[in-house]
């Protein structure tokens, strides 16, 4: 102790003579976790700073994109609602990536909400797709496309797809028909528009790391829906998607 006092004094002395930092020793601490809730009033300056952002945000969340003639919900094995969503992804992916896309896929569990009857706002679409997943295009060999379809047929007991018609039996794909006229060949390559979450190996799809190629233009799936539904709304027709038998269970 004596030595340390002297050291302290020497350091103090050095500080006096050469003007460098005189050290402080950390001697104690106390901790408190403060809850932020209604007990604290909103700071007026910060609220004023945010107000224009919030007003514009509320306006954009409240923007009416289209009108539905009935409430839309996801259903197994197929629903007009999820067919519409994957068809929108297929179309938007071809535009954004400027190349043909053979298949569009969504996680059934990733469709988080339906749409109500009546006005459909941007906020409603945020509820359908709250995640900020990107729409990516993965190029795979036919053999991997089949592995992919079978994986989700088994993983989720359902396939939410666009661009193809599928016949399934005992959670196994029996045949695939492409809307664009291509035929299935395990050695040909095919393009799939999907969530970056799945492309990254989410939903246990880690086999996709062996895909032929993957393109990413940083385009949110939610933005694809918003843009496609807004465009549909301009037609003046209510949104009324139907099942089309693209999934057949034998």
């Amino acid at each position: 102790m004596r030595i340390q006092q002297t050291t302290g004094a020497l350091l103090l002395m050095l500080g006096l003579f050469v003007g460098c930092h005189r050290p402080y020793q950390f001697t104690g601490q106390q901790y408190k976790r403060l809850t932020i809730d209604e007990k604290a009033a909103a700071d007026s300056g910060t609220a004023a700073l945010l107000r224009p952002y919030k007003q514009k945000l509320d306006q954009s969340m409240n923007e009416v994109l289209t009108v539905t003639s009935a409430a839309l919900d996801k259903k197994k094995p197929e629903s007009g609602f999820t067919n519409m969503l994957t068809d929108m992804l297929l179309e938007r992916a071809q535009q954004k990536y400027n190349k043909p896309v053979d298949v569009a896929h969504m996680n059934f569990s990733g469709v988080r909400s339906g749409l109500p009857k009546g006005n459909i706002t941007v906020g409603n679409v945020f509820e359908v797709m709250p995640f900020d997943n990107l729409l990516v295009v993965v190029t795979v060999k036919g053999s991997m496309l089949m592995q992919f379809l079978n994986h989700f047929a088994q993983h989720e007991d359902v396939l939410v797809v666009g661009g193809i018609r599928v016949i399934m039996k005992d959670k196994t794909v029996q045949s695939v028909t492409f809307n664009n006229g291509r035929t299935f060949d395990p050695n040909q390559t095919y393009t799939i528009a999907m969530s970056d979450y799945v492309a990254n190996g989410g939903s246990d799809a880690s086999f996709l790391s062996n895909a032929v190629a993957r393109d990413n233009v940083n385009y949110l799936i939610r933005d694809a829906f918003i843009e496609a539904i807004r465009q549909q709304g301009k037609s003046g027709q209510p949104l009324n998607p139907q099942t089309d038998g693209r999934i057949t269970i034998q």
Partner: protein
Amino acid sequence: MGSAAVIGSLTPDTLLAAGKKAATLTILHTNDVHSRLDPFPMDGSRNAGKGGVARRATLIRQIRSEQKNVLLFDAGDIFQGTPYFNLYKGEPEILAMNQLGYDAGTIGNHDFDGGIDNMKTQFGKAKFPFLIANYDFKNTPMDGHTQPHKIFTVDGVKVGVFGLGIQPDGLIPKNLYGDMKYLDPLEIANQTAGELKKKCDYVICLSHLGYKYNEATVSDHVLAAKTRNIDLIIGGHTHTFLEAPVAVNNLDGKATLINQVGFAGIYLGRIDLSFEQGKGHSVKDGKAVSV
């Protein structure tokens, strides 16, 4: 104050009387606020009515009015999670942090979500520095817009603060972080903390590594145990709600404190530190005391 001969014979008490000073410093911190500028809506969900940056501003101002020495830090993932980010790409988040008087932040994985060009644009609006020692932004738009560490001198006490970011590979899409290079956080932390400790009385790491993992992945626990010279780790990424900081012994057997306050600005962490000039020993017990 007297000559060397006189000082050499003084007892600690007389040293204090001779001008040896005590200081207190309040550290306030957030992590993973994720664009949660408004409180959670009153929709009956778990966090309904909690959070809100304007309320946080009020609390911080209150604390600053009671305590003159305050440093306010954020441990990353400022961006992404509410439509504010989708619409404005992070601008109101950064301007609000300016308004609240943040002293420094570090970079979280979701801060890349708008791309590295957007990071430069939005972080460029900050009046506080982004500290990150293990991301090398050479050949990217962010080059020269971060610094590894900063020394704050508060009431005579020197506080060295540095930042650490998480491994981007497999977590952040490559096209979002571009040519940014990730450097080993343990190596960089030891080097940086060692240099800071030579000049500073207290060393803080703002970390976005994550609190703790089952596997060997580097985390705040691993960081604390495998380094020297870090006094406090303000963590993020794992959205861990710690009720109080956790002490982990470092390579020298000294306590390194780890804290993290969940996400979304539901909580503000507050750590009050006491210092005495020239005192021989720091406290042995690194455990935090709730007040």
